[in-house]
């Protein structure tokens, strides 16, 4: 037992256990307590595709990593300082990531011969020197949890043992000085209707906390003070919830009722779960019969004057492609959110990737251009969702918003936005004739957008359809010159959008010869790697694209103004080929397709190699 504590600026903790061990819950609660203390933080939930993957095997391990600090941080961190391994499989899967000399806490009770065998260990790693490079604490968590809960009435032994995750949470909360009060209140509320379960969880948590405080565990409690964030009100938020809030904000701001139709798919379903709760904002959610129906329902609702939105992940994007092309032809607002995951096909459904970029831009038949934008951080999903709606409504076009598994699940403190700063979103419905006493549904305004005349508006009856439309009148036209004109006009909408986009911002050091250009969820790691490079006294420039199609008008000038351009992506080089193609720049890729974010040290290394 120690009374002093050690101050650290930044800490990374990883919890790892069976997918049924409740590691994600532990991670969420630890994150909530950490957010309360005012630390900056970033999280990385990482779990298998199976709900209950084979117990005890490395493939079934579920993990949650949190990086928190008394300064601002950009990523969930590379290597944990502390690893909690609830069984041998978790140790096997995650020990390599632990910093040498780092703290390893294992549930000693789980290291049985059977579990060791399932994890693929021939000998007990706690005894054969495997863990000797780490500060290892073997804690009999199952035994201590059982003992802590054995007085509770009406509690089955299996239920008691299941609370060992709370024991681990209690222990880590003590180690990092996270007060237990919020966690205990949360447990009391969550299990209010199941008193025995509630009592067991609380008892396990307290046992873990007290174990740290009183037992012969030599780890010194660590103090991580609050981060000097900008003044204002904060909450912790993940990408899924931030996207939902952004859609709500756009709905209220525009006066358009949100009509959200989707089909369940990992990891996009979270968005449906969030939005389905918001009756109060008039959100109409529909769980459609399939991906195709979902996007058609959303498009039908848009025709009816609603804010039609659908969301999915890669395989669902394939299915929606034909309807998205219809929306291009109809020139109606539609927002399609693609929470990217590792493909092709079912691929790695719970792992992250950025491999749908080219599909988003090009993945439709015919010449069917549409705007594509991407979120950079979990909280940025809010702003990007608003922007997707703004573009869709202003230009009467489908817009694809790219998110990914990492962004949707990861969380960070969010400086709550000032609603007064939301952009104008004016549906500008047509109310009368626009050409003398005639109504021409394909007559365009200065943005190249056509009128949005919704059913119920007297005198403006018109027929839309996938057949090519005559410029202006919107009548079916098979005329060759008209098709060429309409193809050009549809493309010009994107050119007009590019003109109004804010320029690509470059954060460049004096004398920097290398630009690191990114998009989407690599924003954090690019910033973190740049800090490391700057820490070495080397100059560097970084820039992040928030609009992928069209790109900001100055993008070409930016990439051409550096000797070298490095593009890190979680794919095999998709932005890379776009940049090379559009701007004839010999950019270099740094690519990773392992289902997990790029680490700062990996990117730092890649940058150093390019600089040399």
């Amino acid at each position, binding site marked *: 037992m120690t009374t002093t504590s050690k101050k650290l600026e930044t800490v990374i903790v990883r919890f790892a256990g069976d997918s049924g061990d409740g590691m994600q819950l532990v991670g969420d609660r630890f994150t909530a307590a950490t*957010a309360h203390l005012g630390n900056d933080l970033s999280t990385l939930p990482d779990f298998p595709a199976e709900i209950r993957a084979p117990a005890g095997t490395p493939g079934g391990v579920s993990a949650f990593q949190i990086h928190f600090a008394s300064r601002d941080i950009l990523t969930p961190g590379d290597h944990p300082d502390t690893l909690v391994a609830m069984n041998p499989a978790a140790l096997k899967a995650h020990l390599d990531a632990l910093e040498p000399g780092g703290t390893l806490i294992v549930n000693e009770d789980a290291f049985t011969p059977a579990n060791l065998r399932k994890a693929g260990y021939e000998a007990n790693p706690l005894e054969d020197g495997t863990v000797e490079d780490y500060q290892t604490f073997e804690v009999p968590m199952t035994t201590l949890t059982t003992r802590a809960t054995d007085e509770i009435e009406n509690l089955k032994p299996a239920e008691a043992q299941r609370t060992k995750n709370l024991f681990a949470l209690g222990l880590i909360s003590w180690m990092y000085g996270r007060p237990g009060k919020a966690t205990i209140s949360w447990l009391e509320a969550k299990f209010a209707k199941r008193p025995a379960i509630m009592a067991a969880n609380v008892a396990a948590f307290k046992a873990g906390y007290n174990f740290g405080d009183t037992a012969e565990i030599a780890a010194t409690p660590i103090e991580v003070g609050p981060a000097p964030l900008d003044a204002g009100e904060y909450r912790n938020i993940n990408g899924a919830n931030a996207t939902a809030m952004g859609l709500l904000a756009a709905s*209220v701001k525009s006066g358009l009722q949100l009509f959200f139709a989707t089909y369940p798919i990992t990891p996009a379903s979270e968005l449906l779960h969030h939005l389905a709760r918001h009756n109060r904002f008039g959100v109409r959610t529909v769980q459609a019969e*399939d991906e195709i129906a979902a996007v058609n329902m959303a498009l039908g609702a848009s025709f009816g004057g609603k804010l039609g939105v659908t969301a999915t992940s890669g395989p669902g994007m394939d299915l929606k492609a034909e309807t998205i092309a219809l929306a291009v032809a109809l020139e109606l607002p539609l927002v399609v959110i693609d929470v990217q995951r590792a493909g092709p096909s079912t691929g790695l459904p719970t792992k992250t990737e950025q491999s749908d970029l080219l599909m988003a831009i090009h993945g439709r038949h015919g010449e069917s251009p549409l705007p594509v934008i991407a979120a950079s951080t979990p909280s940025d999903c809010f702003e990007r969702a608003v922007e997707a709606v703004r573009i869709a409504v202003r230009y009467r076009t489908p817009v694809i918003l790219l998110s990914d598994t990492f962004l949707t699940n990861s969380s960070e403190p969010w400086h709550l936005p000032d*609603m007064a700063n939301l952009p104008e979103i004016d549906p500008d419905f047509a109310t009368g004739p626009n050409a003398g006493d005639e109504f021409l549904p394909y007559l365009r305004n200065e943005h190249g957008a056509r009128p949005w005349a919704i059913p119920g508006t007297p*005198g403006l009856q018109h027929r*839309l359809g996938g057949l090519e439309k005559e410029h202006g009148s919107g009548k079916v036209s098979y005329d060759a010159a008209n098709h060429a004109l309409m193809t050009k006009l549809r493309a010009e909408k994107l050119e007009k959008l590019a003109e109004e986009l804010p320029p690509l911002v470059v954060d460049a050091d004096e004398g920097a010869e290398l630009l690191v250009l990114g998009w989407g969820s690599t924003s954090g790691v690019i910033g973190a790697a740049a800090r490391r490079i700057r820490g070495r006294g080397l100059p560097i420039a970084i820039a992040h694209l928030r609009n992928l199609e069209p790109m900001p008008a100055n993008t070409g000038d930016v990439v051409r103004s550096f000797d070298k351009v490095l593009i890190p992506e979680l794919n095999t080089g998709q932005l890379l080929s776009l940049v090379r193609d559009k701007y004839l720049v010999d950019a270099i890729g740094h690519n990773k397709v392992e289902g997990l974010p790029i680490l700062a040290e990996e990117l730092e290394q890649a940058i150093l190699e390019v600089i040399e």
Partner: protein
Amino acid sequence: MSENGHSHGEGNGATATLTKADFQSGQETRWCPGCGDYAILASVQALMPELGIPPEKTVFISGIGCAGRFVYYMDTYGMHGIHGRAPALATGIATAREDLSVWVVSGDGDSLSIGGNHLIHSLRRNVPIKLLLFNNQIYGLTKGQYSPTSETGKITKSTPFGSEDHPFNPLALALGADASFVARTIDIEKKHLTEVLRRAAEHEGSAFVEIYQNCNVFNDGAFDAVRGKGGADNQIRLEHGQPIRFGADNERGVVRSPKGGLEVVEVADVGEDALVVHDVHVEDSSHATALARLADSPTGPTPIGVFRDVKRDVYGSSRQQELLSAHASATLADLDDLLRSGDTWTV
């Protein structure tokens, strides 16, 4: 576009003066001469003013196929969508806008092949849309391949040795999906068609209407046994509350079969009291299903008219009312409260 210059500036107030011309877009119709679609279009355009719903409150949605062009000829709001997806598009608009009258026009390939999933799910949900299935038992627009309602053994360009497929019975399929309104009519039977569509329009949930439609180019005469000259004797015209009988002198009728289901008999052999009395409102769909199964193909005695018309919760409508009023009163301040509810902290 109002190519004919019709205008109903007063919305509902103008319904008293509506005429057939108010529903005609004036766009040149481009179906083959002699196509059954012309007769259906004329009947629908004539019926619309009688429904008392102004054109701007009426929406026609179609998929791909010859029937898909229907929307261009109606001076209502319309959308010619993509193949098979019209019921999904229509579900979107009907759910979002409970104030509109939404119609889907589709064909046997569109609705029963590529779009089968959306058809059955819109019916099970009981979305307030009227689904008109123009069944011509052939793919017309792609020039004559067999369809999911073509008879087994059908010889077409894609099946030179005869199709192997067992056909769908569209009404039995709709009933299997728990459709709350199911009917069948015939393209050129103007009075019957109009009456059936009127009943469909009055129905509060999904209304599914199969229309036998002759494709005189690729499948001419498919319905001759029940349509036009010589077909009348095989038409079993269903009337709610009436014993089911038919024939030139009403000499034939329908009774319960000892094997289950229904069968056709000579009334003289069984007596009138033995005939099944038609009831469109019976909750159990087995009566309507047995009628649908009486003729799996229109080659002999075939029931037409309304098979089933029952009340069931309509998808969306009441919920949408609540949501609309919630949306109308929601403010950015409410959203601010939402964002600030739960765990927040101030720096």
